[in-house]
């Protein structure tokens, strides 16, 4: 059975994945064009999206871990 933490984790993973895919696509398109503007697009849009995607992913790991620890503590308390 999937609990709410896992649902939230899945949502955040999806968000991180989508941000990363868009960032990687921006990088791919920027590499097809040898022009100063493609560098600007890569650094301002592509790298920003990649950074956001990685941060969302790492944040989701931290949140999941914290929620897991809370659950363990609550289980011990109930016992």
């Amino acid at each position: 059975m999937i609990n709410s933490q896992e649902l939230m984790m899945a949502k955040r993973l999806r968000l991180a994945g989508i941000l990363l895919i868009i960032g990687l696509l921006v990088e791919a398109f920027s590499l097809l064009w040898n022009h100063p503007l493609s560098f600007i697009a890569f650094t301002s849009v592509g790298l920003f999206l990649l950074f956001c995607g990685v941060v969302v992913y790492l944040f989701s790991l931290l949140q999941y871990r914290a929620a897991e620890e809370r659950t363990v503590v609550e289980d011990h308390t109930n016992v």
Partner: protein
Amino acid sequence: MPTAAVFVLLAVTIGIIVIVVAKPEITMARGGKILAFIGLFIFPGFVALLGFDNHVERSKKTTFCLSCHIMGPYGKSLYVDDPSYIPAAHFQNGRVPRDEACYTCHTDYTIYYGGIRAKMRGLHHIYVQYLGKPNNPIHLYSPYNNRECLHCHEGSRSFEQGAVHTADPQTMVDIKSNKLSCLSSGCHDTVHNIPKLNQVKYWEPPK
């Protein structure tokens, strides 16, 4: 790393991310967690670094510099059929790599190389090109430094033993210390010479 290899890595990374996004429940298992960590953290970071490196390498290309409209005449000047035109003589005789001609002689003039000031200037050039009004004609921020010539010519026989260079012992000292400019001291003073470009013949490279 070649651009094709970066594209392969990009495709692999996107593939892994698509798997994680489509089936996030796989991350409940240990293998899925590792796959997600690789696909959502390790590979994107690595691919971003490779992409940045690739952009830096491409910025050295002559086509990169000439992609801005204002640089067009400077690119044209490389084909002037007159050996007194220093950049043209270097470009046509392979004294500088043709695909990195601008970068070879203007190493302090890009976004990526040189000090912080050079990088800010590079960004300023992009800003002025698209959002401002570029100077017409454009000019160097500071007089051309002999260092750029000496990268290659220092130690070469024709430079070190050239009649004019050795006529007075002080001449060589002044050239090497940038006190006597190679370009503006009346010796090698025909450079891009943009105003005269419509009065010269052009070299056509063999196909």
